[in-house]
């Protein structure tokens, strides 16, 4: 087991290296001169030259890369060109917000996705199954941003039920925090709920067909025990794995949602940084997201092994 984890981490290292190169190249690809954006409306040539010097933008790209990456290895992600705030500080302040959003969305997704998936699998081929599938597909098919704006227009503006956007830290006002998170989490969660539902359904159908379910029934176990204990326990393995992976996806999906609901999280940070050519922030945030994603993958693998007695011992 430990050996397996060590092995997985070892494999993650080259991936992270490639990510760092990719991140760096990607933003070099971004058109426009960051200095022009930084210098402001007036574009004073003196200032331009100073900024170029300060951020070493005239160095050859590989030099810039190594300068950056060696700093990263020392735990220094640089300073936001736009706001002067250290990137790490920014990330640490934004991350909880996005994670809260992601957790909320995940809770919504799990709360909707898994029960409907189970019901749909158990009632396979009935109208309940059919209806659940249609709803799930619709959830998958609705464009997030459209749903977001629609909800704002209806729920916030028309009915004034929930705040339209923004973020209130839970430490400040927990109730308001939950209220502000509800809509974005729902928007973010629907797509996930749909995909969770479909995966739960197919995992459950697969498991329900298996021989050991027949064995459980042959022991005379009642059907709810068979479903909730024997089937779900095994179906949960792929579902847990998927959820972890989806969580990584959620972080990425947060980009658009945060944009719509102006939630000061990770996604908004990076999109704004892209448009403001705040290189240090883009690099730092994308690198962190990628590392987070890889860690999530790692976690998914480990959980998969942990949840699977068969693998737990043999690895």
């Amino acid at each position, binding site marked *: 087991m430990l050996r397996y984890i060590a092995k997985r981490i070892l494999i993650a290292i080259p991936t992270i290296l490639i990510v760092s190169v990719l991140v760096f190249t990607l933003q070099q690809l971004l058109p426009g001169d960051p200095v022009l954006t930084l210098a402001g409306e007036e574009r004073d040539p003196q200032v331009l030259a100073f900024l170029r010097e300060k951020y070493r933008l005239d160095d050859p790209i590989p030099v810039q890369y190594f300068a950056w990456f060696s700093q990263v290895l020392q735990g220094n992600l640089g300073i936001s060109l736009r706001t002067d705030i250290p990137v790490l500080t920014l990330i640490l302040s934004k991350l909880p917000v996005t994670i809260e959003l992601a957790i909320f969305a995940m809770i919504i997704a799990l709360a909707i996705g898994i029960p409907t998936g189970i019901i749909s699998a158990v009632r396979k*081929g009935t109208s309940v199954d059919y209806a659940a599938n249609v709803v799930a597909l619709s959830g998958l098919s609705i464009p997030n941003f459209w749903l977001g704006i629609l909800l704002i227009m209806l729920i916030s503006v028309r009915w004034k039920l929930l705040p339209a956007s923004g973020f209130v830290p839970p430490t400040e006002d927990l109730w308001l925090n939950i209220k502000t998170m509800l809509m974005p989490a729902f928007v973010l969660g629907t797509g996930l709920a749909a995909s969770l539902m479909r995966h739960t359904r197919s995992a459950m159908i697969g498991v329900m067909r*298996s*021989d*050991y379910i*027949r*064995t*459980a*029934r*042959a*022991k*005379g*176990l*009642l*059907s709810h025990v068979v479903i909730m204990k*024997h089937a779900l*326990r*095994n179906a949960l*393995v792929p579902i847990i794995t998927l959820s972890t992976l989806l969580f990584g996806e959620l972080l990425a999906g947060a980009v658009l949602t945060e944009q719509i609901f102006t939630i000061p999280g990770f996604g908004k940070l990076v999109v704004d940084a892209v448009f403001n050519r705040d290189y240090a922030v883009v690099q730092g945030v994308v690198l962190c997201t990628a590392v987070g994603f890889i860690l999530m993958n790692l976690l998914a693998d480990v959980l998969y092994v942990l*949840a*699977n*007695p*068969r693998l737990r*011992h*043999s690895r």
Partner: protein
Amino acid sequence: MAAQRQSPLLQVENLSIRFDGAPLGINVVDNVSFSVAKGKTLCIVGESGCGKSVTALSLMGLLPTPPARIVGGTANFGGRDLFSLSERERADMRGNQTAMIFQEPMTSLNPAFTVGDQIIEGILRHRRISKAEAKERALEMLRRVRIPAPEKRMRAYPHEMSGGMRQRIMIAMALANEPQLLIADEPTTALDVTIQAQIISLIRRLQDESGMAMILITHDLGVVAEVADEVVVMYAGRIVEAGSVDAIFEDPQHPYTIGLMGSVPSLGRRQGRLATIRGTVPSAEMMPKGCRFMPRCPFADERCVNDAPPLAELEPGHWARCWYAPLELHRGGIV
């Protein structure tokens, strides 16, 4: 019909099972009747797809419904018709009075729970005893199926065991509540010869000890010869021949039974080419309307094409479904 000597524990009459979507009038199990007496072993033999498992599952109430559906027949078990019990009553009976073991030891145990838990769970389901007592009972069962170091094995997961071990666990699980009837669906097919022999002898020993009745499903005539008291030969959903094990092996009447025996290579010195049955089992769409074995039967003629022969009792307790049984009487002339 067969085994009338004692009053039967289970008496199945005219069982017919149908799958949704199958062609009209084609039942995967058609008018099947047999009975098992206490302490006796009934073997059901037949090639793949002839309806053996479906029959067994229907007796356990484990048929996937839909698509499968019992369209006729009764199964009298200890005075009650299994098919008219409620789902709850069936569940109470499963793993208690009747138990079943399956072909695939590799997949028949839940990989997520220890084998101990899985056995105990079955015991607690049907007995009002404490968990500790159930555990004691489970341990005893493991000892009875000759699992070495049973205390340790209780905590093991199925994947940590070999196929033979797992099949022993399945047997322990099935017998934990001392069922009156054990249905074993090809319990050794997936195992190696040496293990297969171990399992067969284990089952026989346990049966002797407990006096339960057993239905053993197999396609291996060797296994049949070793353990059966009564034999039912099925072909394409119907019984083609039934009788005591001696009658079937010494005096087979149906062309299919004969062909089957001819198809098994002998263990003695080679005696030339094998006798074969040509062709394959017809699919449901292709099912002939007369005798279902007709397209493959060397003796078939017009009559077989049009009319299904009845299951006729040739000698007491020996039945065959062929217009021309005994063959030498009707077909002996042309050689």
